[in-house]
């Protein structure tokens, strides 16, 4: 089961927390956990495409750290001086690397979001806050591809009378193009006004009207939300214990790694990997069960 088979609200909570934690934790261990998890998850979701993009992001992140160290000279531990005479320091290099990898990780999360949270889910989530706006956006999302299709249809039929957008000389073509645009706009507008009239006839804007949605919040979702919030509570306590703080300027200062902080790292990792694990376990069980069913059928 992919993560998008869960309720959209849960997807929203997960990605909000994941991105917020990635952006605000500058501690290298927390950051590398987030980096690995985001890398793995986008790899699982988008396969080769994801791999290519992730590697690009990583390389760009590392390149950013070099650029950053070249232009920022805080810190006490010098490595060498460049040809202008400015110092390149370990601290600025490390801080640049942290920023670069943070940006790369956020971009990887965004890749996962584009794959999982589709436009209809956005409309559904918006509909909770503002039903009118969500209707507006869904009309809009439907009509953008429809405008393209209509433009093609108009063009085809006008080619029959020698007025297609690729017929005649340059000025003719421009003229044909504009008359096609004019037809397109008039047609689309008037057609949608008609459909608005039919919406009104079917009871739009009456009291007690509900919006259609295919999502429901079942026990599986409730269980996952409880799990998420348990993890988030532990992560918040990690922040309260100061486990996530680190200073890069003027020198790298971080707290010691104790058994307790290892617990926090593990919980953070579990939280970020939960959707990926659920998907892998679901796929494994599905393939196992399909093998068993196939055997049973053969026996009969």
């Amino acid at each position, binding site marked *: 089961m992919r993560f998008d088979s869960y309720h959209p609200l849960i997807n929203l909570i997960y990605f909000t927390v994941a991105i917020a934690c990635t952006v605000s934790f500058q501690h290298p261990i927390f950051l590398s956990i987030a980096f690995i998890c985001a890398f793995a998850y986008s790899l699982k979701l988008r396969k080769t495409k994801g791999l290519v993009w992730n590697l690009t992001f990583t390389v760009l992140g590392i390149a950013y750290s070099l650029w950053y160290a070249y*232009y920022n000279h805080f810190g006490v531990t010098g490595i060498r001086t460049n040809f202008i005479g400015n110092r390149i320091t370990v601290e600025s290099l490390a801080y640049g690397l942290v920023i670069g990898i943070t940006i790369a990780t956020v971009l990887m999360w965004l890749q996962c979001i584009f794959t999982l949270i589709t436009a209809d889910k956005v409309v559904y989530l918006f509909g909770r806050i503002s039903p009118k706006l969500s209707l507006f956006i869904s009309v809009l999302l439907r009509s953008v591809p429809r405008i393209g299709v209509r433009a093609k249809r108009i063009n085809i039929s006008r080619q029959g009378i020698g007025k297609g957008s690729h017929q005649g000389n340059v000025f003719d073509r421009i003229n044909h193009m504009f008359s096609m645009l004019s037809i397109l706009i008039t047609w689309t507008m008037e057609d949608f006004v008609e459909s*608005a*009239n039919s919406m009104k006839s079917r009871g739009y804007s009456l009291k007690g009207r509900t919006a259609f949605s295919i999502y429901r919040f079942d026990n599986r979702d409730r269980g996952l939300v409880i799990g998420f919030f348990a993890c988030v509570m532990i992560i918040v306590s990690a922040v309260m214990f100061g486990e996530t703080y680190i200073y890069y300027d003027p020198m790298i200062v971080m707290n010691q790694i104790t058994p307790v902080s290892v617990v926090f790292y593990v919980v953070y990792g579990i939280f970020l990997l939960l959707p990926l694990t659920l998907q892998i376990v679901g796929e494994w069980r599905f393939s196992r069960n399909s093998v068993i069913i196939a055997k049973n059928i053969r026996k009969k």
Partner: protein
Amino acid sequence: MSAKLLNSHYYLLSIAIILISFAVFFFSYEKKKPQARELVTLAVMSAIAVASRAAFVMIPHFKPMTAIIMITGMAFGAKAGFMVGAVSAFVSNFIFGQGPWTPWQMIAYALAGLIFGLLRKKGLVHEDKRIQTATIGAFVVIFVVGIILDTCSIFTMGAVVTKGFIKTVFLSGLPVNIIHAVATLITLLILCKPMIDKLNRLKLKYGMSGEEIV
């Protein structure tokens, strides 16, 4: 703590302000109980704006979308312009990619629509004064929309914000803004009059209420 947070998180702070301004606007829209017909007309205007951005995707930074939003503002009033601008920026980014720049584009295009709605009321821009309208459109793009979009890149580049850095960003953004302004100028020159005539005819034909429909 809070002062430090304010200083170090310009980006988060500005995003919060932008989102609050949207929230105020959209809740007032929700309260107004728009008619189905008005809602759908504005949605189609947004769709045309988004489609126009998608149609010119091969010419970099050439976006007639702003001009369409301005025309909407002129035809249906300032609030409608704001609404169509914000929503078109949001929806067109489903095609071009969402990111930290989305709220900034939303507020920039929304303001373009709002300003043209207000200027139409004052009579500074009018569908009969083509050249004046197009010039004002180009200036609005460079000095309002472009500035807001560049401000976004100042905060998202992740460097320390200094005066020199701000100047560099604005200067390097200028060519992009000029292409954008030229696109707006051409589109307004050509489309403004026929488009508004069409919308007026639509209003007349279907008896839509008055000037301000949002």
